[in-house]
């Protein structure tokens, strides 16, 4: 072990560099706030058609991400989609009669849920249901309707 000291310094540098790389990957490359996201409350919403909505799709309010889609199910009684939204607990003052719509980011982008604030004093909490919902816009349906309306004109 002639160069024991310099060997140890190099290994120390190596470990520091590796840790720094991991830290950079988790802080700069990924979103560290993903950890705290699970703390929140869950509300449900029924949609006639969810289009391409997926689990972990963002839930936004005024464009700001306030939560994520926790799960998507199918209601056997009403033939509707049941979407469970996980809202971060810091947003605990959303009125209970807020409406939820499924939007598309850009023309071809991913789909997300947009919340629009209602007017009541009651706020959303664990287990609440969003009554006012608007389904996803399915492009084929719109094109179909457009074609039909064009045909009617002539």
């Amino acid at each position: 072990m002639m160069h024991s000291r310099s060997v140890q310094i190099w290994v120390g540098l190596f470990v520091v560099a590796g840790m720094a790389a991991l830290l950079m990957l988790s802080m700069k490359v990924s979103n560290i706030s993903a950890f705290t996201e699970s703390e929140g409350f869950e509300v449900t919403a029924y949609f006639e058609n969810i289009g391409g909505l997926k689990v972990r799709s963002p839930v936004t309010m005024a464009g700001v991400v306030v939560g994520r889609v926790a799960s998507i199910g199918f209601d056997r009684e009403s033939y509707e989609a049941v979407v469970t939204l996980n809202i971060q607990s810091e947003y605990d003052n959303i009125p209970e009669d807020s409406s939820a719509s499924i939007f598309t980011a850009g023309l071809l982008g991913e789909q997300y849920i947009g919340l629009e604030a209602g007017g009541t004093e009651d706020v959303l909490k664990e287990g609440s249901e969003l009554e006012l919902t608007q389904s996803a816009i399915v492009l084929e349906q719109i094109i179909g309707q457009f074609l039909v309306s064009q045909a009617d004109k002539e």
Partner: protein
Amino acid sequence: MLDQLQKLGATALGVAERLGRGHLFLWHVLGGFPALLPRFGLVITQLFSVGVLSLLIIAVSGLFVGMVLALQGYNTLVDFGATESLGTMVALALVRELGPVVGGLLFAGRAGSALTAEIGLMKATEQLSAMEMMAVDPLHRVVAPRFMAGILAMPLLAAIFSALGVIGGYFVAVGLLGVDDGAFWSQMQAKVDLHEDILNGVIKSIVFGFVVTWIAVFEGYDTVPTSEGVSRATTNTVVHGSLAILGLDFILTALMFG
């Protein structure tokens, strides 16, 4: 006909026997890990030769892989006006796949072959037998520190590879190709998940480090103690190690992201 059958049987038995020996060897080496903790200096010395000396090739490769990814990805994305996604593409490709896999292949070539050659030569020159004569278990004294160093070094090397790749991609995308600085990072942060992507990449690199180092030290320890045997064992380490990484990567990817 019967001769062919016999040959096949002999090969199969040979493979099974070697696999069995490899696992017994692993068991024995892992048994030496607790004794290493009070003598961690042994591991540090090995970390130097396995980790620090691999740093240059890993760093340079990572940087260039990231730069090339950005250049090539740009050509496709620019047609869709989606060049802001370049950061996402580079980061996901590096963190999920290229960091652990290319890092692992380089690790097998740079560190694995050196481990095999070192242990194989120790065996060929009867240093290992000499240790046994002195009632020193060579598996605990020689193999275990190298094995632990390999397992510790690989995740760090893969992380350095990915991080430098992202930086290389950043320089090319923002500096050379004129992608917007803020969009590059924010799109990347929006799409790369700490748990889903980065943690899984780290798990991959730990698995690859384990397997490659295991193959390397076993090939060295199990070598035919001649110069020809050592040369063949070194080749085997690189070939089998690389194949193991590619095969395991497919399985791990299917499990993690499938």
